[in-house]
């Protein structure tokens, strides 16, 4: 038992049982590999694609409407075919995933920041703060998130910044409710009483004592959120009020492809759609695993 090594913070938080179970779970390993691949593709993919699909000068109409590589009439660099503008689908998906991931990740970070802050305040101080924050949360939850998104985007107009605002305003609620619940149970623990007796200010206690102990559930929510935000953004873009066409996300690509679906150019819509499914699946599987692993420890 005597070892003088310093265990890293991460190791302390998760403990070796987590690592043990992680190695045992094929799903966890599979989903992690999948996610890593997706991220790597998004980061360095553009260096390897055959074209930059956003640079209009790249596009040659004579490349248009080519089917994927295993079908007749296809052409070498365009592995997944091209759309009606000559845009290579593979490149478009790589570039599109960057936009989708960027939006959903930033969206998760922003909504988490807002949600956690409100959750900490509501849980720690209770009283009026808690009542007000929770009532707003309850009211907001009675609206479907799509409706709220449509409403906001309709008012402010489609742009990446506005999508991020919309996602933040939609996403904070689950964080707040969960964090508030966690704070209620942490608040009763004796080390919080000890901190008060030692004279630490409320701010210090909330940030240094309470916050680190509610993070595990936040991690679980966040992984699931990434998936749902990608879907939300894709839906908005599909409906045409999401990301503008100049920087298409996967959802926008789906939308574009939808228009030519009946002309027989099925690959323009299907492949971006499939990629969305892949990302969401990877993230959800990992989130499932994390939720099962991290939750019992909290009790």
């Amino acid at each position: 038992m005597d070892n003088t090594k310093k265990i890293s913070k991460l190791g302390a938080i998760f403990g070796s049982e987590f690592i043990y179970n992680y190695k045992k779970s094929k799903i966890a390993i599979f989903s992690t590999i999948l996610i890593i691949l997706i991220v790597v593709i998004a980061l360095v993919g553009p260096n390897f694609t055959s074209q930059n699909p956003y640079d209009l000068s790249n596009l040659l109409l004579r490349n248009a409407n080519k089917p994927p590589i295993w079908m007749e009439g296809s052409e070498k660099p365009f592995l997944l075919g091209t759309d009606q503008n000559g845009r290579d689908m593979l490149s478009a998906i790589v570039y599109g995933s960057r936009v989708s991931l960027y939006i959903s990740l930033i969206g998760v970070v922003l909504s988490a920041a807002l949600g956690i802050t409100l959750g900490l305040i509501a849980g720690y101080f209770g009283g009026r703060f808690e009542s007000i924050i929770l009532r707003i949360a309850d009211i907001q939850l009675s609206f479907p998130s799509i409706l709220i998104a449509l409403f906001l985007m309709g008012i402010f107009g489609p742009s990446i910044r506005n999508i991020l605002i919309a996602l933040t305003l939609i996403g904070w609620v689950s964080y707040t409710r969960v964090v508030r619940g966690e704070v209620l149970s942490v608040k009763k623990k004796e080390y919080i009483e000890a901190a008060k007796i030692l004279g630490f200010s409320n701010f210090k206690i909330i940030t240094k004592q309470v916050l680190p102990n509610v993070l595990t559930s936040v991690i679980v929510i966040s992984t699931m959120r990434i998936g749902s935000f990608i879907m939300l953004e894709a839906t908005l873009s599909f409906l045409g009020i999401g990301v503008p066409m100049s920087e298409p996300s996967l959802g926008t690509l789906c939308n574009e492809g939808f228009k030519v679906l009946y002309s027989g150019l099925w690959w323009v819509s299907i492949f971006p759609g499939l990629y969305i499914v892949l990302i969401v699946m990877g993230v959800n599987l990992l989130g499932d695993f994390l939720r099962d692993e991290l939750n019992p420890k909290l009790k």
Partner: protein
Amino acid sequence: MMDKKKILEVKNLRTYFHTFKGIVKAVDDISFDLYEGEILGIVGESGGGKSITGFSMINLIEEPGRIESGEILFEGRDIAKLNQRQLNTIRGSKISIVFQDPMTSLNPVYTIGRQLEEPLLLHTKLTKNERYEKCIELLNDVGISNPEKRLKNYPYELSGGMRQRVVIAIALASNPRIIIADEPTTALDVTIQAQILKLLKKLVTEKNCALILITHDLAVIAEMADRVNVMYCGKIVETGPVKEIINSCSHPYTRGLVNSIPGIVEDKAKLHTIEGMVPNMFQLPKGCNFQPRCAYSQEICIEQEPKLSEVNSMHSLACFFPCKEVNNNE
């Protein structure tokens, strides 16, 4: 004592837990007997294996633990080898168990009457009226006044002490031959504890069953038990009549336990302690488990594991150098 009937024989019982970090030998090769009408105490500190011993008696061990080997002979059968269906004919009827926490032993959504009736439904063939009469009788036996009203109450309407009485009544419902009580009074206040202990002792005599009393409180053992098994790290280090063990020659661990209790030493003087801590169950010391903390250990204690050897016909201990002086209590 020798003319009492032996009703339980445990031989070389091993209950191991196979965890991700390794194997925990919670109960490691213990053997003991239980006689009709006696109170056998199992005492030890946390991790000693006493609760697991109690649960092993009715094979209430869940993954990742299991009974590795050994025999638990009861009424001509080996409990360790029975399947679930056979076990269910013994659990709650022939051998019943009283758990520690009265707040969680009762199901909050069913009335007391329903829960008290359950063992009667499962293990007896009484009619509805007969069951009702029996429930009233049981509540009276455990000293609950106004039993008719109590049968309709829910657990939250009862205090801790009353709930524990109900739990004991449920344990008694089908006239078990053995009751296993796992720290039955630890969660109760000291005045209620006295009531419950008195009750248990009275019932054991009246019903002529046997009681296995598991606790960490040596004083409770001294008040209640006839014989005691002292457990440390999964092994029985000493066994015998309670008075003899507390007063005279003892295993250094037992000695240490007795001396650690405040009240023995002069006030404000330093209490005797047992040096060190309970070892990590994944890395038990070589030889005798207690050796790193023992003031009397020598070479052989590190090399070999001491086996239980008899001091007299009723008293055995596992130690190469047991202390010979007499303890002075009072």
